[in-house]
């Protein structure tokens, strides 16, 4: 093997004869290199498919799906970051690591470019499009780096992009979408064909950012570890790659506990929130949503709502995950899909509504990978079998999948599920005159609309903070009498027993305006102060 030698610099001092063998590019290698410089046609393919999917996501993004309370929470926290109010406009209590809404804050200028009208949450969703776009490109890259064909890699991208369930979930402002993009980035980096130490270290950083975007993403880290181990196999640099990956993960991840430590909020103690206290709460005290197999449990309902949007990606994804687990080159995404499935199936655990966001990319890759493997296996035996198998698969997709997804996505492209919120936001902006001095209790979705409409930030109160946050209670010396309006939404009415103050407000108020259909009714209610004071 050649020794390192000086390549740059001026003429050698000695006129020594250089008879070392040079690597001369062969005829086939030259165009390959030139192609890379000009831009690979594959890049254009992946970019156009991504553009197609992002267009599908963007059309009617404000109208469907209905804004959820969680979206409002994250958007409001991103607003707090962007406006220098800290990590949240209420006391940040380490419920989630904050990186996702810090990123959302960094992207918050994007919706403004489009001049779309609507409730803040619905418009804020536009910031999610580049995040999902990145995930789509990364899925294609990962598939290619695992040795999958162009057609199957493109299929993975399209399955993840066009499944109605994915279209629904990826439009919403969820922390999980950020975490997914970073974890896919980590996977793509460890699969880098150059096996560069700094790619692997960057993968470690990306893993940590993923986990600091949404802590539950941690369970998919073994997939990255498997890919790293496989890609560094039989290479002289494997221990260094592992060292680099660990450095990246640990030294990035440690900044979160360090932040807590510097604020004196690492350990639980009286009178302050703490990181470890929050962990204890999440692990021990959070009530489970029941088994996914028990009819009527929260987890079971959730599963049915996912299956309602698209059973294909979930069922086929699970089957494909099991099928490709034994295939070495396709194992990493299968590991992630398998772990996420097992975590969802554990009895008595808490299953959040957006959990499926994390599974979808790995299931999409698994489905495409299984198809790719079928193509590979069929071409080993007989040459004519491969086109037959591919035609069959295409026919199957055209008859079973396309019609279902067509109808599913039609709803996504046309429904207007946020009209009620839009009208309520309009009402609060126009019908209430003295907004500066009005105290209003709302759900998380409407919070930012109220602040944008000119209400004082301190006087727009998330409904559950009334009962749960002592700092908020302290701003209302006369209790519920200090509140002027409450906006009753399905989210606010969900659990009346747990929130006595909210209940009192609802019983001591009268509807002044109501919007939306009966089951999702949004009521603006004025508090009756005279009767009780």
């Amino acid at each position, binding site marked *: *093997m*050649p*020794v*390192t*030698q*000086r*390549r*740059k*610099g*001026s*003429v*050698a*001092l*000695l006129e*020594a*004869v*250089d*008879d*070392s063998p040079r690597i001369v590019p062969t005829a086939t290698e030259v165009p390959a290199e030139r192609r890379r410089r000009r831009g690979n046609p594959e890049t254009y393919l992946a970019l156009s498919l991504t553009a197609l999917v992002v267009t599908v996501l963007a059309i009617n993004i404000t109208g469907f799906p209905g804004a959820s309370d969680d979206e409002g929470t994250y958007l409001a926290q991103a607003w707090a970051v962007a406006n220098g109010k800290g990590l949240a406009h209420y006391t940040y209590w380490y419920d989630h690591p904050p990186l996702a809404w810090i990123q959302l804050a960094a992207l918050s200028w994007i919706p403004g470019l489009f001049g779309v009208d609507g409730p803040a949450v619905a418009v804020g969703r536009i910031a999610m499009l580049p995040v999902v776009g990145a995930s789509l490109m990364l899925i294609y890259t990962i598939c290619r780096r695992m040795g999958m064909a162009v057609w199957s890699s493109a299929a993975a991208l399209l399955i993840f992009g066009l499944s109605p369930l994915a279209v629904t979930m990826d439009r919403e402002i969820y922390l999980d979408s950020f975490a997914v993009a970073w974890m896919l980035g980590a996977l793509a980096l460890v699969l880098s064909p*150059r*096996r*560069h*130490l*700094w790619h692997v*270290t960057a993968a470690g950083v990306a893993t940590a950012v993923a986990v600091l975007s949404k802590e539950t993403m941690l369970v998919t880290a073994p997939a990255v570890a498997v890919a790293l181990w496989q890609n560094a196999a039989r*290479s*002289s*640099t494997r*221990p*260094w790659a*592992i*060292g*680099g990956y*660990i*450095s990246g993960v*640990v*030294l*990035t991840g440690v*900044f979160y506990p*360090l*932040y807590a430590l*510097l*604020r004196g909020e690492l350990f639980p103690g009286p009178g302050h929130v703490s990181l470890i206290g929050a962990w204890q709460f999440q692990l021990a005290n959070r009530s489970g949503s029941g088994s996914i197999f028990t009819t009527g449990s929260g987890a079971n309902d959730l599963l049915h709502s996912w299956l309602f949007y698209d059973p294909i990606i979930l069922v086929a994804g699970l089957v494909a995950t099991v099928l490709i687990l034994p295939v070495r080159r396709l194992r990493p995404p299968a590991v992630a899909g398998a772990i996420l499935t097992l975590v969802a199936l554990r009895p008595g655990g808490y299953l959040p509504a957006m959990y499926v966001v994390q599974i979808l990319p790995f299931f999409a890759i698994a489905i495409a990978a299984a198809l790719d493997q079928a193509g590979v296996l069929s071409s080993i035996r007989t040459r004519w079998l491969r086109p037959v198998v591919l035609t069959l698969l295409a026919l199957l997709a055209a008859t079973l999948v396309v019609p279902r997804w067509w109808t599913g996505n039609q709803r996504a492209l046309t429904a207007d599920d946020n009209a009620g919120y839009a009208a309520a936001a309009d009402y609060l902006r126009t019908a209430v005159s003295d907004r500066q001095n009005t105290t209003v209790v709302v759900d998380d979705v409407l919070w930012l609309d109220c602040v944008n409409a000119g209400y004082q930030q301190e006087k727009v109160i998330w409904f559950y903070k009334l009962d749960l946050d002592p700092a908020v209670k302290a701003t209302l010396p006369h209790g519920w009498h200090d509140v002027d309006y409450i906006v009753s939404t399905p989210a606010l009415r969900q659990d009346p027993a747990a929130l006595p103050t909210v209940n009192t407000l609802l019983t001591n108020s009268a509807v002044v305006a109501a919007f939306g259909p009966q089951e999702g009714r949004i009521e603006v209610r004025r508090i009756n102060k005279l009767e009780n004071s």
Partner: protein
Amino acid sequence: MVPPHPYSWWRFSFAERALILAAAVMISISLVLSTFAAVTLWWTMHAWRTPETLAATRFAEPDGDHRVTFSLLVPARHEQAVLEHTVERLLRSTHQGYEIILIIGHDDPETAEVANRVAATAPERILVVTDHNEVKNKPRALNTALRYVRGDVVGVFDAEDQVHPDLLEHVDHAFRDTGADVVQGGVQLINFHSSWFSLHNCLEYFFWFRSRLHLHADKGFIPLGGNTVFVRADVLRRANGWDGTCLAEDCDLGVRLSSRGAKVVVAYEASLVTREETPDTIGSLLKQRTRWNQGFLQVLRKGEWRRLPSFRQRLLARYTLTGPFLQAFSGLAIPVGVGMALWADLPVGIALATFVPVVPMLANIVFQTVGLRDFGMQYGLKIRLKHYAWLTLGAFPYALILSVAALRAVWREYTGRRNWELTAHVGAHLHAAGPASAEASAA
């Protein structure tokens, strides 16, 4: 009076302004420190970037031809305890065309006695040259011997070096294969088990010769090592040999040859490295490091590096030669920053910023851990848990030693103390137990 603009600097009170300024200063310092630490880490890890780079750092397999003739210079000063062993090993070399020139000071009869005795065993190979310079140091000794050199290539070894018998054959091939003017072989301190600072010292060598030097050879600016370095005799003569006034004559030679466009090749092969020992006390380590740092300063001030053809090379030169001082500064500034972040009541953003330079520092420790394991595997040494503990716990104290050495070097250079503080050698790296009675006296 015009009221201040709402975004004016003067709307802040004096205390606020002071705080903002302090914050700006702290964030800038930690930015600079982070960049420095990250670049250093980047370069330290050069050889392990990809499997291909690692493969390219090795010697090519020799073809068995012996066409280059060598003159091996071995300056020895008060090193009677180790010299004989070193020469005996050199004589075992498989190469056919070489001579050994031992250079002994006229005021050092003990070493001269050993030298003459060994020379008598192989008179056709060994020449003993007496150095009559009033001021004795290594470059002067080497220049004295340069007049007697008959070979095509001059090789330099220290009196305590353990040289592999196959080395010359590989170097011969490397010269012919690459058309190099200079071939730098690997040098490795081996006695990591002696003490915690020996371990750190060994790892420094490991990372320097295994990895960092290859980057320098690639970029065309290289501070050469002090031994196992081979230079074509005519190139060396044209460059007027070594600088007798410089404390880091090896570094200086590398810089001068680089700036004249000499082609330098670095090759590392664990089985072929020259084995050396670390300084036996913290005091002598400190002295040795002070000398090197002062030498780097001298090379920087001489300004030969300004002749390097490209801006990037000059930047690399400036960066490398000031490296020890930046390292000393960060070795002190980073702990101070972290201490302030933990105990002073800083805003959390600034406090977090002071931790950023710690990241590459800690990553360096992680990579050193991997390096220690690799070192043990390559040299067939058993690394115990204790040694990993020395590595992690000793990292900060070792940085402190380096910082002190850097400060000492600056102080000595600017107060005009430019004499040669020699490092003592007791033979701890030799397989036989080193004779403790034969401790060499340091100048």
